[in-house]
């Protein structure tokens, strides 16, 4: 990660963030579920996931949320501050898929010094896994 931080003034409305590809592996799904203290069986037990009609274990929403937050702060740099994240899930992420995360600056609030990045995470098999908005405060100057 780049350790310098973007300033509020340097960000333009409509700016696109570089895409990030995430290999969705069983390791990432189980690791994310356990690191988020989520022991719901569908996130680590394939038979339990199949009993709910899915082919395999699937990523929990907290991991998706964490990846979305990371995606935006990777771009802003460390001195930015996350203010809010809204995540809506669509198609599940199951092992073997590749999720590509993309984002675009869709709002700037001069008074608050915050920008809103609209983020989409699309997997290569079923399409949109997550869509959301991340509000992040940026320093006025570096």
């Amino acid at each position, binding site marked *: 990660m780049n350790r310098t931080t973007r300033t509020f003034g340097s960000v333009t409305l409509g700016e696109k963030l570089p895409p990030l590809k995430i290999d969705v592996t069983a390791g*990432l799904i189980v690791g994310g579920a356990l690191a988020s203290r989520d022991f719901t069986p569908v996130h680590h037990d394939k*038979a339990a996931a199949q*009993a709910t009609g899915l082919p395999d274990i699937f990523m929990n929403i*907290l991991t998706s949320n964490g990846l979305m937050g990371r995606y935006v702060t990777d771009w802003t740099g460390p001195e930015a501050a996350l203010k809010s994240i809204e995540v809506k*899930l669509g198609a599940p992420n199951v092992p073997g898929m590749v999720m590509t995360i993309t984002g675009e600056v869709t709002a700037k609030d001069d008074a608050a010094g915050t920008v809103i990045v609209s983020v989409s995470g699309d997997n*290569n098999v079923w399409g949109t896994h997550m869509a959301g908005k991340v509000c992040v405060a940026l320093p006025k100057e570096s």
Partner: protein
Amino acid sequence: MTPAETSAFEAKIRAYVGREMGPPKRGNDDVNLAMIRHWAEVTGDENPLYTDAEFAAASSRKGIIAPPTMLGIWAMEGYPMAQGHTGKVDVQRELHNIFEAHGFTGVLGTNTITEFHRELRPGDQVISHTVIDNISAPKKTARGHGYFIETVTRFTDQHGQDVGRQVFRTLRFMPSAESVAANQAQSGGDAKLKAPTRIQSPRGHDNAWWWEAIDQGKLLIQRCKRCGTLRHPPRPMCGECQSLEWDSIESSLEGEVYSYTEVSYPKFPGYPDPLLCGLIQLKEGTRLVANIVGCVPEAVHVGMKVRGKVERVDDATVLPNFYPA
């Protein structure tokens, strides 16, 4: 369920709306470096404010902070509650148990809205105050018939100060019998999920020859044998002289953009993003719909010179693509 059973069930679950999950609860673990590092590792988050003490100390934060997306994690119940191993169940688990007992065995987190009011640091306590805010009307979803349960959690710290808020929506659903059967049937073979290919070209009596040439790496243009007029897409009769006799020539693949559009929503699995569809005016005179690739959408303009290449775009598909010349 019969209508009477459904209304009894709905009365039971609706009685939970507005109820607190229990008394305010301090997280099992206070904010700590180990859990922060585990989370940063798995999400691939290299933000030095989370894991690099030296960098964090020199930053505006003057020390390590927890990734804000961990807010709800500090309040998670952990293994015993999820496995039902614990003697006491909280109000939320009680509600979920009612859903399960009525066949709504599927569970899926579908939305979160999280606000961060203060960054958390190692040593902070996180106390959660959760209310079951809403249960939706019954819904038909892609996963099956079910209900959305929405909880609202207010988080405070050891000083009683507000640190954040989270709305969490969960779908409880009755898995559809067909999808369960389909997925259990394939579990033995462990069929790999296949990424979709492009929608395959429809090949009929009058156009299969054209697609077969594409498969061989050639872009052909149909030509009237009588008057020599070129035409595309392939069809049986010449529009100029009505002759049914035809042959073809191979295109030079040189041309320019006659018109174009960017398909931006929705994104299609199996298709590139951005997806640029061009109407290409070939040097020979006919026009062809094809993707414009090898440049950003902003660079494309009407009249742009392009050069085509017939190439494999996925396991099942060969197509002519046009690049900036």
